[in-house]
């Protein structure tokens, strides 16, 4: 996005490499956020796509609201079938999908920035599995005493604690992190499978849908929960964006520039856990959104740094599109959306890995 007039080859060689143009967005006297124009453009594109996917979610299919009726329906003039679809069926589902996807995307971006590795993402290293196990355990052993979301949070924190301790190097070494994550996921999955086995069939079916991550039949309460979590966490994440970007260049440089890497890391990990656990508690551990969103964000913006905003938006877009597929694809009936993201994200992860390994030894 260099808007300087075209220069001759000789001149280009002498001139500095193009620096992305930044402009400041100012709010009052104290807040000034540097924004790259290319990022703004990409964000706008993602927002438009998100809008299209949202409209498609509401209008497609047998129960869809006709495209012509949609504007008036959204203004609150829906009646009969349309009102039911908008207020009970697809409206809450869509609103939950947007916030959940955004939370997963942001959570993944924070964690991947801390571990400096695409594989250090919450769903790969067992956070989601832990949250799912926590939720299932609460549902089986303490029904009615604790909300399921608290169980998810406890499970997520426990899983991360175990991973942190068992690597012996904290979150620093990606390889160990991944293997420890697989071990922790295995225990968490075994626990959830036992719960699924132990409860009766109807409940087991619902529980399995939840464990794979489902957006079916969400309520406005769910929407309120996840939006509250998201809106609380986004400002904090924005505060962390710059120091995290600096930290990616190394702890020493980061210290030299006057920030405190240890604190930044702790803050980012905690924020990431809260976001993931919040998302898991309303929609179950939907796989691989927090892995893929930050990776795509990096490729779209071609920028360094954690790309928090872009990951958040892309997470929302990915999940809404996946949920659209889950609702409309005739292949299987009403599968939990997590299965789609797991299949697609798994293939994408395989592609990422093979590509990384094909490179000459780094």
């Amino acid at each position, binding site marked *: 996005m260099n808007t300087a007039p075209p220069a001759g080859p000789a001149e280009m060689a002498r001139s500095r490499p193009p620096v992305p143009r930044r402009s400041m967005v100012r709010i009052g006297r104290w807040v000034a956020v540097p924004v790259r124009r290319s990022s703004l453009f990409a964000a706008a594109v993602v927002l438009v796509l998100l809008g299209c996917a949202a409209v498609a979610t509401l209008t497609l299919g047998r129960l869809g609201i006709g495209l012509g009726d949609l504007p008036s329906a959204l203004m609150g003039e829906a009646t009969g079938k349309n009102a039911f679809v908008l207020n009970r069926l697809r409206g809450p589902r869509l609103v939950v999908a947007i916030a959940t996807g955004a939370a997963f995307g942001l959570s993944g971006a924070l964690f991947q920035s801390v571990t400096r590795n695409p594989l250090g993402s919450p769903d790969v290293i067992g956070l989601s599995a832990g949250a799912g196990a926590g939720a299932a355990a609460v549902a089986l052993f303490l029904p009615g005493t604790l909300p399921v979301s608290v169980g998810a949070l406890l499970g997520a924190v426990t899983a991360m604690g*175990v991973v942190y301790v068992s690597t012996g190097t904290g979150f620093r070494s990606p390889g160990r992190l991944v293997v420890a994550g697989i071990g922790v996921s295995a225990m968490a999955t075994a626990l959830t499978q036992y719960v699924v086995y132990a409860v009766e069939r109807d409940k087991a079916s619902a529980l399995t849908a939840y464990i794979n991550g489902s957006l079916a039949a969400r309520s406005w309460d769910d929407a309120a929960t996840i939006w509250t979590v998201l809106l609380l966490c986004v400002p904090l994440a924005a505060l962390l964006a710059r120091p995290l970007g600096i930290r990616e260049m190394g702890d020493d440089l980061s210290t030299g520039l006057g920030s405190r890497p240890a604190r930044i890391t702790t803050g980012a990990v905690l924020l990431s856990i809260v976001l993931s656990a919040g998302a898991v508690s309303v929609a179950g551990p939907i796989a691989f959104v927090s892995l893929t969103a930050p990776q795509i964000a990096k490729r779209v913006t071609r920028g360094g740094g954690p790309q928090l905003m872009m990951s958040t938006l892309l997470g929302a877009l990915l999940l809404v599109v996946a949920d659209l597929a889950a609702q409309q694809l005739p292949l299987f009936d009403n599968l939990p959306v997590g299965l789609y993201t797991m299949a697609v994200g798994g293939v994408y992860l395989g592609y990422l890995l093979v590509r990384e390994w094909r490179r000459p030894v780094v």
Partner: protein
Amino acid sequence: MTAPTAPARPGPAVRRGPAGLSLAVLVCLALLALALFASVMSGSKQTPAADIWRVITGGGDAYLRTVVESRYPRTVLGVLTGVCLAVAGTLMQGVTRNPLAEPGILGINAGASASVVAATAFLGVSGQRDTVWWALAGALVAGVAVYAIGTAGGGSSPVRLVLAGAVLSAVLAAFIQAVALSRPRVFDTYRYWVVGALGGRGFDAVWSVLPFAVVGLLLALVLAPGLNALAMGDDKAASLGVSPLRIKGAGLLAATLLSAAATAAVGPIAFVGLAVPHLVRTLVGADFRLQIVFSVLVGPSLLLFADVVGRVLLRPEELMVGVVTAFVGAPALLLAVRRMRGAA
């Protein structure tokens, strides 16, 4: 991520003389006998040890005989699966020179499961005799795929194969769940099978997979000297007159046979194949001939004890052996992680 190829950590330099070895064999045999006895003894009806002994030696009243004999298939199945998984794990760790290789982690079990579920749902396959073939095909395909992904671009580190296995397992899990959830009848069978349980199966489960297990085991024993040569590196092995490619291919084939047999018999059980070789290496060192023999002794003991624990913990309910092994074996994995060296 791209650490140079890490050779499997050679076991501690244990070299036991004949006396030491016989002692080790005796201890393992005693443990196995204890495990067998415990497995027959525990169940929803508590039976005192003296009564069990009376039945085994041919006495006891008819009622007691029926109760105790109903537990035989479960025990035999445990022995068979334990042997299969342990030897499969030893083979895979030897062939890939990777201390984290294991049928569960490398996605072989997931491949077998996916194939069985698909065959049950779409082709109406049922009964042990047919499922075992499907399990075998799925396990083979998964094994080849993981090896291909994990060694893409040359070289392989322990973590690479594990990642490739995890990726494949995730995609296959999505497929399995999709099929299971859209067909309630499949789902009902599936959720009992997938946890990996020894109970509720008869001797026919044993007979249908026994041939595969025997072939795999014999192949493993034949391959042991070749694996020893392979442990010194491909070039050394070649100069010793051993074709690395042939040994690797045959080793993976044997490992696949064994894990497919185990999965078809009792469902996917993880971590036995990981934990047993590590235990055995600390016991007898790096010689694969000894490793395989001792895996045969230690594997069943571990699996049977896990099964007994599962039955005793929640009596009269029971915890499936797959759940117990996950909680016993995953910590073994975590310990192995702590001991991993280098940047991997």
